[in-house]
């Protein structure tokens, strides 16, 4: 038994359920998590001494949040838990984990990556102004630190998180100036049959919208963002959109923006997962079988594989762990597996509905004005990116990066990669798939030159 070295990366809903399955099989997995406390992003916990309870923090998801936190606490004696630890590379059957300035190479027989998702952000003219946050960032401020990103916050984007985060702000007593959704309402109607695969979640969405309207928050659908206004001294001052032929302006000192989320697939990439283009969501995704096998002893669970939501993450995290256990020669419960696969299928249908109802606004992105900044880290404008295609003849994403510096900064294309691919595709008049995918490189997140090995 001691020969089976299982590493789980991430302690969100997928990682916790994966760890539970591995412990149930009699193994002691290593659970590595970047956060100081388990829960992941959606069930992120405030520091120990904060007082807001689960109901206030997680609303309708309080019971699930509590279950995840309590179940993980019960696992602690049976796992090797390594919080505040960054997996910065994977190579030759070893995970490279960094903690407090030191790093070590940890060997594995099975690597279960439950790395979650991050915001999918579309660039809007003016979004480099101070006070512009991603929806996830706005939520983290609230959940982990109990503070809002501004006094009067404008929510801009699309997807369930847009409404959820806005409603959480309202509930926490923050002023929400407006919720501005780029997707038209009729798409939601069209997607209703798929969304009905998860009636409870659909109903939650309806309630969020109702709560926002009751609080007097203007909710506009089918908007076209024009500009985020602001200046370098004072940051954001407002947002201008076009809506039903009219120009509307909303004053505010902060913007939370996002268009759903996308897998954090950097670790999977370094562990040499295969990626394929997904036309429905217009992005490259790591490939797995139905259980989460990605090959080379790599298993993917949760939103880090496919964005199916937090509830589904509990299912796919467990499935990925069961696949790993089966491949290690351990017996797994076939009935349980079948049930989990059926659950996953329902969430997948629902996720398709969400993608249809709240699409990534690729046409808006492709048409972004020349003077808008695409890559905030490197301050690359749409004009500079387009010139790398038209003048320097970049034909794909990596080349455009080399020539224009788009995606070459601190975030390594996490926030501009999808948008820049759309702009390159439009500039070349080719399909998005033909612009390729930014090659993944370590480190997964920045590491200091002072980092020292402590295992040799």
């Amino acid at each position: 038994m001691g020969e089976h070295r299982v590493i789980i990366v991430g302690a969100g809903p997928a990682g916790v359920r994966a760890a539970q399955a591995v412990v149930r099989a009699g193994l002691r997995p290593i659970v590595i998590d970047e956060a100081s406390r388990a829960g992941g992003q959606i069930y992120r916990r405030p520091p120990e001494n904060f007082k807001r309870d689960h109901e206030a923090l997680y609303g309708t998801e309080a019971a699930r949040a509590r279950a995840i936190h309590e179940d993980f606490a019960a696992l602690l004696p049976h796992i090797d838990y390594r919080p505040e630890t960054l997996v910065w590379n994977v190579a030759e059957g070893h995970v490279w984990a960094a903690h407090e300035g030191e790093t070590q190479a940890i060997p594995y027989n099975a690597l279960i990556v439950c790395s979650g998702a991050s915001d999918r952000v579309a660039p809007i003219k003016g979004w480099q102004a101070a006070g512009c946050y991603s929806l996830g960032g706005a939520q983290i401020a609230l959940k982990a630190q109990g503070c809002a990103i501004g006094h009067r916050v404008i929510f801009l984007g699309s997807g369930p998180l847009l409404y959820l985060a806005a409603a959480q702000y309202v509930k926490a007593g923050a002023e929400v100036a407006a919720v501005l959704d780029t997707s038209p309402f009729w798409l939601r109607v069209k997607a209703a049959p798929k969304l009905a695969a998860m009636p409870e979640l659909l109903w939650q969405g309806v309630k969020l919208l109702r709560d926002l309207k009751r609080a007097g928050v203007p909710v506009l659908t089918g908007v076209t963002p024009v500009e985020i206004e602001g200046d370098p001294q004072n940051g954001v001052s407002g947002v201008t959109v076009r809506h039903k032929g009219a120009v509307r302006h909303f004053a505010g000192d902060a913007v939370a923006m996002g268009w759903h989320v996308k897998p954090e697939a950097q670790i999977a990439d370094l562990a040499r997962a295969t990626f394929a283009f997904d036309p429905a969501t217009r992005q490259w995704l790591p490939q797995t079988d139905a259980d989460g096998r990605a090959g080379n002893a790599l298993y993917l669970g949760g939103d880090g594989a496919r964005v199916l939501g937090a509830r589904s993450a509990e299912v796919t995290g467990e499935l990925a762990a069961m696949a790993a256990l089966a491949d290690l020669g351990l017996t797994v419960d076939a009935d349980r597996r079948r049930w989990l696969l059926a659950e996953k299928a329902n969430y997948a249908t629902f996720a398709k509905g969400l993608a249809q109802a709240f699409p990534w606004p690729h046409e808006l992105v492709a048409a972004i004005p020349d003077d808008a900044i695409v890559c905030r880290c490197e301050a690359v404008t749409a004009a500079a990116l387009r010139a790398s295609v038209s003048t320097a003849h970049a034909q794909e994403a990596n080349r455009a990066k080399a020539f224009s510096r788009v995606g070459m900064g601190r975030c390594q294309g996490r926030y501009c990669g999808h948008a820049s691919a759309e702009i390159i595709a439009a500039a070349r008049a080719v399909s998005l798939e033909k612009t390729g995918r930014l090659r993944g490189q370590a480190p997964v997140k920045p590491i200091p030159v002072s980092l020292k090995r402590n295992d040799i």
Partner: protein
Amino acid sequence: MSQIHQSDVAIIGGGLMGCSAAFFLRQRGLSVTVLETDKVGRQASGTNFGNVRRQGRPIFQLPLANRAIRIWRDSPQLLGSDVEYLQSGHIRVCFRERPENIGKMEEYAALAREEGLDLELLSANALREKFPWLGPDVLAGSYSASDGHANPRLAAPAFARAAARLGASIVEDTKIVHAEKVGEDFRLTASDGRQFAAPILLITAGAWAGKIAGWFGEDIPLTPRAPTMSVTEPVPYAIAPAVGVMTPEEVETVYFRQVARGNIVLGGSTRAQSYPDDYRSYVLPQNTMTQFEHLRRLAPALANLQVIRVWSGIEGYTDDALPIMGPSAKVSGLFHAFGFSGSGFQIGPGVGETMAELIATGATDIPLEHYSVTRFAK
């Protein structure tokens, strides 16, 4: 049967050597076709450190390096685009435990001066006064004010575009799978069946060149290796020269430079294997760690910086670390320029100009005898 694409010179390999050779061949009026498996400058030419460094090269290579430095200086006008060449100096240092290097530096500086390269030798104190970020273990240094660095991601593509403007055919995404001499012409076949013909063939295919030379009966052993590269987040621009260590130990050979944007590019220490057949190379994390370790010794202040990306590439090394440059020993009309062994970037444009001169006129003043392919014929 599709039409055969004919030109005066065919070049296999669209790296810095091939693209600059194409540019200078067009200047001399020859028609040129560059055949590149992937995109121009994507392999070793685009992934290297970017040192435009003459000091430390073999003395007999300095005429070639001097020719190259003139091209680097003129590159904005010559190419019509900025390849971020900065003539901001190069400092080569040695550590305390290798005092014998001071004598070697002095000897080298005397010989280099005869070749037109002025080097200033600096003692530990003078060195730290000038470059206060050097670590306490640094014993001495040799400073070259007229060396510098450039952006490898931009250089070869800029030569390719300039060559294309002069009328060269730059054919990307075209892997040559067979080449032979048929009568007066070399006949090249791409993986999709397209054919190219030319009476002159120049091989500038880096780590892949040995295989191509093999088609003509020339057995040239090349070892594909992968450099360990890293880059930090941008910080205010403060370090002008490129910096490197003089040492016989590969693991100690770290080097760094700061680009105008502010990022510090790190290279050196242990290299890894690379896989030319798969077009793949990987940075091994353990090599990144030894690189950091030796860098901290060279410039302790850099320890506080965050590295945001690592990368590697595929470089072709010869056993004696010298390139193969010149005509084939076996087939007339066949020329080689490859095997630059991780040290080709600075001399690249000079290699292109020299090969163009050699091909167009049959001769060059640049001494090439050290690079002859005949040294492998045993």
